[in-house]
């Protein structure tokens, strides 16, 4: 008697588990279909561009299908040298400007953030408020005053207006991001380091910075993307085509002689995305490692 009832209970439990597993599986399938569809919508323009970069000019806007009938690989070779100046130069220019900007932003913004988060100085709250206010001013508002300033300095037609401000902690967003991160680090670490004979700079260098790699990596990634993609800044300050960065060069495809070469342009556009992708893949690891390390207590 007891045996029978025991076996039925076990059966009911098994049945119940199986039903639950089936339901979970259905939910998972639905979820994934939804996610796949959404991703497809997001990624479609990119796929379209990739396809266009491999099509002959005539097919790009005429043909509805994504799949190129013939693969025009020479779009890439042509595009690279289509302009009076080769893309080797443009990529080099972009690399110089971007790398220096990233370095400048990460160093200067983390210095400023460290000061706001940890040091005492007079007028701290006022300076902080001022800094936060710059977040609310659109770039386009300061564009003209800035241009006049740099013109008076004689910096127009050089990379200086694009690079030097990055070394002066000009980006309140990054500073704010880092302040928030630094504030989470226990102050006792600073104090232990102080007793261990660290100067404020050494505390920043040996304790705060190594523990803030995720914030640094985030700032570096955004800084890289924004500078690499920046069109307006180079457009305003760079006049000589040999100084152009990649986005400006891409634009030259359209304006150069009226006859636009769309295939090569899209080919170069595809290439212009690759550095961002690579940079992201490399630095995103730091973010993940940082999160794994954040079990501080």
């Amino acid at each position, binding site marked *: 008697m007891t045996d029978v009832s025991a076996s039925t209970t076990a059966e009911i439990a098994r049945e119940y588990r199986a039903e639950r597993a089936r339901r979970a599986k259905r939910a998972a399938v639905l979820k994934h279909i939804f996610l796949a569809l959404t991703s497809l919508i997001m990624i479609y323009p990119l796929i379209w561009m990739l396809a266009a970069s491999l099509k002959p000019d005539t097919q790009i806007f005429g043909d509805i299908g994504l799949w190129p009938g013939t693969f025009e690989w020479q779009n890439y070779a042509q595009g690279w040298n289509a302009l009076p100046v080769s893309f080797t130069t443009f990529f080099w220019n972009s690399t110089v400007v971007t790398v220096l900007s990233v370095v400048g932003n990460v160093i200067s913004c983390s210095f400023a953030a460290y000061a706001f988060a940890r040091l005492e100085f007079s007028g701290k709250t006022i300076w902080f408020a001022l800094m936060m206010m710059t977040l609310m001013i659109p770039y386009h508002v300061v564009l003209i005053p800035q241009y006049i300033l740099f013109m008076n300095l004689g910096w127009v037609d050089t990379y200086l207006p694009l690079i030097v401000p990055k070394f002066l902690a000009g980006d309140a967003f990054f500073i704010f991001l880092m302040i928030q991160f630094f504030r989470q680090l226990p102050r006792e670490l600073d*104090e*232990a380091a*102080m*007793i*261990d004979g660290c100067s404020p700079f050494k505390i920043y260098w040996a304790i705060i910075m190594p523990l803030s790699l995720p914030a640094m990596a985030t700032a570096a990634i955004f800084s890289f993307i924004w500078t690499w993609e920046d069109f307006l800044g180079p457009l305003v300050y760079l006049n000589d085509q040999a100084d152009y960065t990649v986005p400006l060069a891409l634009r030259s495809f359209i304006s150069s002689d009226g006859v636009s070469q769309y295939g090569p342009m899209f080919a170069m556009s595809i290439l212009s995305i690759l550095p961002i992708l690579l940079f992201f893949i490399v630095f995103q690891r730091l973010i993940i490692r940082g999160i794994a390390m954040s079990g501080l207590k």
Partner: protein
Amino acid sequence: MASVTLSEVRKAYSGFAVIHGIDLEVQSGEFLVLVGPSGCGKSTLLRMIAGLEEITDGTISIADRIVNDLPASQRNLSMVFQSYALYPHMSVRKNLAFGLSNLRMPKDEIQRRVADAARILQIEELLERKPRQLSGGQKQRVAIGRAIVREPQLFLFDEPLSNLDAELRVQMRVELAGLYNRLGTTMIYVTHDQTEAMTMATRIAVLNKGNLEQIGTPYELYNAPKNLFVASFIGSPKMNLLSGKATGNKIELPGFGALAFVGAAGEMTVGVRPEHLSIGEPDGRRAEGTVTLVEYLGSEVFIYVALIDGQTLLAQAPGNASYKRGDKVHLSFRGADAHFFDSKGLRIEAPR
């Protein structure tokens, strides 16, 4: 080894005073324990000695040198924090060596000291680990290791054992006491724990609301508390306090009757420690009451007795005593065991 002298030390946070002028002298080689209720300013005081907190007023000297304006790193002291504050990104070895390499000490000397500390604290096999791979007790050892490698003249501890479980706390307490005997360095130790304070201290300083209430050996504090605050703060379980009225040559205690006492008049408080309250003995002053709660601890029993006037007293009896809730009992104590405090809460020595 160094002495530490605080004179008229005050601290205010944006105008709000938290330490009200403390004079304190810590002798060289002494183990001074700072105790007091939460928020009384123990940590603040310790951090001022360490140089982590500005001193609003007064002077602090270490080894007869005024250190008010000396940065923490130059005071030749080590501090162990409650949260350990180990550098999470450094291995245990680096954690220990960090302070030494900042002093530009030669490499082999650093290695020797780290190895010594690791041996003393039995953390040799942990040296290559990161702090997150350590248990609480191991972290604690590393934190102490980081303090001793510097061979400072003064150790500061801010509730170093409070994050450990009870058993480990006892073990680390014994080890710390052993370490102190071995090094003989001056130590200032903040704790909440009565047992830690009583067992480890050469002297205990009792703080209350930013004032120093009393400083003395554990024996002095336990047997001759200067005032009501110290009397009820030191000792666990707490001293029983009975309020009475003194009239020239005796004190009238509700329940217990009159107690011969010369030398004071007016409102008085009489303190009796639980172990001095005996149950059921016929002699002495007796009060009748009802047992309301019995706490059995094995070696002893705590018995809560409600007197007729509603006041509840705590008596301690040997573990084999058998009382239960609702029992009618008689409480008594010897006059010599009682502590007397006047209406301001200050101790009055009973004439013997």
